[in-house]
């Protein structure tokens, strides 16, 4: 689901001297969140969750899941099922290695917090034969806020082009990479849910969640010969009044974007029997007004990224087959900080690099352990990053084991599913420092349930 990201906001807050504790709270409240598979898709197609999703629970997609999305969420079994409405919710317990300097959020303690993280309502499925939607409204139980969440409405059609089958379509959405088919790009990447009550690193690139729900736009895409995927979208930042109306808070004092924001995507994919490989590139460029203040110049961020996916299906005939799945991405950001230099004396040019790679093995679409390595490094700048020495670098590992009892062809419950997960985040570096980085390590238990009406 949602990826309201603190990137823009943080930069503005950091530059304007807010306290570290307030910033920490802000990060916690606005941390990226994720969307999952929804049972209305399963109802519409008559397929179990495991047909589309690795581990029988979203959002990690198999080839069929990618095809379903590519074709506009419209595929179905031809039977009427009523409106495709579904709901999800998850609850959790978070323990960090050291107590935090202040309560993790309003109404929460400095450590060992139980939370109702999110309750979401979805329209997920066909609207017409060629138009479908994934649209989500979420109540954030940590921020105590109802908000418009990830939305992707698309039209899709297939035709012949250069003698080969081609699927083309159009998407209207509110989050760059929400329309993407792969789990290597930011919105749908691992971890698929994470604690809203544990510290997270400050630095992130703009495309890595910084625009989620704060922009709206759309564009076109095409998959040629099941081999080449291209997509180009244009976004525009939403005004404060729209953000306020859609529940995207806080509003006042947050960064604004100026002008149009182009997003591009190119990917190559290929099936080699039981092996599947994808390599691609994506990116975005945007002008940002720090804190929403227009002093003339703006900050220009340009993100250029590469990604790769690999899946190995042990028994392709069975949707509950064991699957090895791996994703990787590297995002390079160049920033020209004309506005921040004027406002706070930041260096004119910045760069930020993020690398992530994860691998999982799903046993019988029931038990799925995953391991991820992540690393972010950026230009040192005491006038820009609110860390002791101006270094925002972070790195570490995330280990997770998920257990999903249902969502298989023989499951006795077909109207819903549940996912139990335990996750541990281990920092080797956190916001520039290595000593005490482990104080931010977090143990996170979650129970995630989904059902359709």
């Amino acid at each position: 689901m949602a990826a309201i990201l603190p990137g823009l906001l943080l930069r503005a807050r950091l530059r304007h001297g807010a306290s570290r504790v307030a910033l920490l709270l802000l990060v916690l409240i606005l941390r990226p969140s994720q969307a999952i598979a929804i049972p209305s898709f399963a109802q519409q197609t008559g397929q179990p969750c495991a047909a589309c999703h690795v581990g029988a629970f979203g959002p990690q997609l198999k080839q069929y899941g990618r095809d379903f999305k590519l074709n506009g969420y419209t595929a179905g079994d031809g039977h009427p099922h009523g409106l495709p409405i579904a709901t999800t919710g998850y609850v959790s317990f978070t323990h960090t290695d050291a107590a935090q300097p202040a309560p993790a959020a309003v109404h929460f303690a400095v450590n060992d917090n139980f939370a109702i993280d999110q309750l979401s309502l979805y329209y997920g499925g066909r609207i017409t034969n060629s138009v479908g939607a994934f649209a989500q409204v979420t109540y954030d139980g940590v921020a105590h806020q109802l908000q418009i969440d990830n939305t992707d409405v698309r039209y899709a059609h297939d035709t012949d082009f250069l003698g080969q089958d081609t699927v083309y379509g159009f998407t209207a959405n509110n989050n760059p990479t929400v329309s993407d088919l792969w789990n290597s790009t930011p919105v749908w990447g691992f971890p698929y849910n994470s604690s809203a009550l544990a510290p997270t690193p400050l630095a992130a690139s703009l495309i890595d969640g910084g625009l989620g729900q704060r922009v709206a736009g759309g564009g076109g895409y095409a998959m040629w010969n099941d081999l080449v995927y291209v997509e180009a979208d244009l976004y525009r930042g939403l005004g404060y009044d729209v953000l306020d109306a859609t529940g995207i808070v806080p509003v006042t004092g947050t960064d604004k974007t100026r002008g149009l924001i182009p997003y591009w995507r190119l990917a190559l994919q290929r099936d080699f029997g039981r092996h599947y490989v994808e390599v691609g590139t994506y990116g975005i460029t945007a002008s940002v007004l720090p804190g929403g203040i227009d002093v003339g110049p703006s900050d220009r961020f340009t993100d250029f990224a590469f990604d790769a996916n690999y899946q190995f299906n042990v028994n392709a005939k069975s949707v509950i087959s064991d699957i090895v799945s791996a994703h990787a991405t590297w995002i390079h950001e160049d920033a020209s900080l004309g506005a921040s230099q004027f406002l706070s004396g930041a260096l004119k040019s910045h760069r930020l690099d993020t690398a992530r790679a994860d691998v999982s093995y799903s046993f019988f679409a029931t038990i799925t352990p995953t391991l991820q390595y992540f690393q972010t490094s950026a230009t040192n700048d005491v006038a820009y990053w609110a860390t002791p020495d101006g270094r925002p670098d972070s790195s570490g590992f995330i280990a997770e084991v998920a257990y999903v009892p249902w969502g298989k062809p023989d499951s006795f419950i077909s109207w819903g599913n549940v996912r139990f997960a335990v996750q541990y985040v281990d920092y080797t570096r956190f916001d520039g420092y290595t000593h005490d980085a482990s104080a931010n390590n977090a143990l996170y238990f979650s129970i995630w349930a989904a059902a359709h009406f």
Partner: protein
Amino acid sequence: MRSTPLLLAANLAVCLALAAPDAHAASATIDQSGQVFSQKSIEIAPGETLTFANHDDVTHNISVFNEDDDATDLGLQKPGVSLVHVFDKAGRFKVRCSIHPGMKMVVNVK
């Protein structure tokens, strides 16, 4: 007794003829396995049939589209079930699974 060698030879010839690869086979079977068709295209003669055999553990729903994009829905096909469709007119037909849009093949009837 004297005719036995001739009969054997005749039978062998018939068997060999039946076993020989033939793009215009009177009936061919397309496997549905791993949510793909076993062939991307096939050429048959008018009046010949194709058998679609679901070897997956999920349901399929095959539709056959003619050149005017009119669809013939073969209905839901549960795991282990085979469906037979007669292609009685010449033309180029697209075969799709309405549940699994990645399942695609072309049948050329001529």
